[in-house]
């Protein structure tokens, strides 16, 4: 499996779990949970692809984690900018903190796993 694909898969899974975990930290969002999970999965996939392509070029665990974290933070910020349609409230901390850490996990996975172009096949 190449690194962008690893990023895509891990990003999707981590993103879905990240969205689902909103039920724990903010139970009041339960009615919108399907939309949150879909949005978070999509965000995870994009972050995973970015981290995966970065890992293809750069072989560095700290940098990979940093890129994943930054991408996660950026996309989480874009989502957090949209206010809750019902209350008009912004959930910056609730979205950006988990989003960035989920990005860091994806950054780690893309550095540790997956094949770079030119790597010998087993």
């Amino acid at each position, binding site marked *: 499996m190449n690194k962008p694909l690893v990023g895509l898969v891990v990003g999707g899974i981590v993103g879905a779990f990240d969205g689902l975990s909103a039920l*724990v*930290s*903010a139970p009041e969002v339960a009615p919108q949970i399907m939309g949150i999970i879909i949005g978070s999965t999509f965000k995870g996939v994009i972050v995973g692809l970015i981290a995966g392509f970065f890992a293809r070029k750069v072989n560095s665990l700290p940098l990979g984690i940093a890129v994943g974290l930054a991408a996660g933070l950026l996309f989480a910020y874009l989502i957090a900018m949209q206010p809750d349609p019902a209350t008009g409230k912004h959930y910056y901390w609730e979205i950006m903190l*988990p989003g960035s*850490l989920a990005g860091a996990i994806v950054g780690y996975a893309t550095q540790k796993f997956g094949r770079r172009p030119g790597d010998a096949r087993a």
Partner: protein
Amino acid sequence: MNTPSDRALDRLRDVAQWPDLSGTRYELVGEVARGGMGVVYRARDRELERDVALKVIGAFAADEDTVARLRREARILARLEHPGIVPVHDVGVLPDGRVYYAMKLVSGKRLDELLAEGLPLRERLRLLLRVCEPVAFAHAHGVIHRDLKPENVMVGPFGEVLVMDWGVAKHVGEARGPLAASASAGAAPHATAHGTIVGTPAYMAPEQARGEVERVDARSDVYALGAILYFMLTGRAPGRGAASPDATTRTWAASRHAPAAAGIVAPRELDPDLPRPLEAICLEALALEPERRYPGAAELAADVSRFLEGERVLAFPESLLGRARRFASRHRTLLLVLLAYVVMRVVLLLVARV
């Protein structure tokens, strides 16, 4: 104590034994090393303008067997083209009738000298892997070294590792022959009912020490590699330091299954800080029965690599807790990030409830 006149006499004797290189393309520079079969000289190749090593049969040891062994050693080396095996350039006969072969002049340190400088464990293990490479290559070509020991490994200034002294090497299936003739490193030959003992006692596999020539195969080299690993881990050769192959045979014959009972002190008894999987690798390579050892140098190297990579080592049955601990130490960063994620979720939950 040698008097000056004794030393002068020794010097004269050495010079008298220097080979006559007239009529060859080589010019003698000096002596490099002295072994059981011959002497290695540093010589200048006038044609190619480079220094080479010349292995020449000793002046008083030029019997038919020794000549045949030297020629076979040269042929084996010539056949084994590998960066970890010294390449042979030329074979010939000197005007005084002595056979010689020219090979690459290796500079650097012997493995035992290098280890005495106190290398970190991981570096020592990487060196072992580099030793295993040419040995595995030789095994793949049906050649067994039979005299592997730290003194026969050279480490070059750029970290290149060369396995030396293939004088007692043999092709698999070659039960007897001129190669199986004498022990090295000053140990006298000890003939047995089964065959001829070759090798260095402290690094010799039990079957080799017993002279069971037909049982000597790649696993005998694995034993020697295990002994080198033991030396790397503990700073001493395994066994009770038997003075002769016969003594070694008696020691091993006393107990055929437990290395400790046979006189091999478990490495962790000498250094309790050594990792258990590494000790298990070492003891598996040093198993008394060849069937219980790694089948070849490549398999031993693979297990050492697994240890270096933090993966599960085949020689060491691991408990569930041990696996979890290894996983945790291998993926410490991931666990920290996951922990941070969980802590952050808990904090957000607590904040939401306040």
